[in-house]
């Protein structure tokens, strides 16, 4: 049965390098810029930006599910050690929560846009701020997994395979 599975390379992955950090570029950028455009739209009285914000939010929601699929596969192959296990668990939990939050916000935004596309209620702006904070926390956790614990880097994979960590 194991012979049917693809062989893992020196990053402990069946593909060249991690894909999750590439896909999250889109989630992070579009979720944050959506909130920024909402802020400018409300305070700068530029309601045209609400349309840009909606589209960015919609595609951030689509992208996060792709990010979660690759994130789960790569987390399963990560062999976390020491404090990395707790951080990876929290990163996964917040990741799934963000998918829910983004989906809810996009649905809410769709209704708002259908009723009046040129205004935005302040509670939605508050929800956008919460989303941005969640994204910032999630990015920090992801940074620690890569830059502190080095998951899926060649030296760490070699150390794990040799039983050194």
């Amino acid at each position, binding site marked *: 049965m194991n012979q049917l599975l693809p062989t893992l390379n020196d990053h402990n992955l069946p593909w060249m390098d991690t894909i999750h950090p590439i896909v*999250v*570029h*889109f*989630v*992070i*950028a*579009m979720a*944050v*810029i959506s909130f920024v455009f909402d802020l400018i739209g409300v305070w700068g009285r530029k*309601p*045209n*930006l*609400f*349309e*840009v914000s909606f*589209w*960015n939010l*919609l*595609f951030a929601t689509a992208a996060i599910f792709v990010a979660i699929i690759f994130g789960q596969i790569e987390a399963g192959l990560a062999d976390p050690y020491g404090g990395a296990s707790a951080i990876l668990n929290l990163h996964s939990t917040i990741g799934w929560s963000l998918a829910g939050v983004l989906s809810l916000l996009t649905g809410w935004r*769709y209704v708002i*846009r*259908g009723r*009046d*596309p*040129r205004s935005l209620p302040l509670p939605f702006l508050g929800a956008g701020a919460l989303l941005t904070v969640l994204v910032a926390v999630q*990015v*920090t956790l992801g*940074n*620690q997994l890569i*830059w*502190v614990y080095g998951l899926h880097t060649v030296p760490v994979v070699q150390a794990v395979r040799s039983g050194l960590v």
Partner: protein
Amino acid sequence: MACLALLPALPSPIQQLAQWLGPNGLPYALPIHPNLVHFTIGLFVIAIAFDVAGPCIRSSGGCSGFLHCRSPGRASTTWVGTTCSPARW
């Protein structure tokens, strides 16, 4: 030219800073550059994607109809907020 020969003997700023650098070779814990390029890559790519998708979204049916994207004349995703809204139909 004699002065140039002395250059390798001089301590470099990097060596002087070494005592303050962390495991990543930085004076702070996590690198900042990879976090900023999220925006460069993500927004640039999606801007191009919107530009490509914009002219393609012309029908009122299916997904684009559900998202109220019918836009006479110009493409909705490149014309910010004026045509891609139910209020302007």
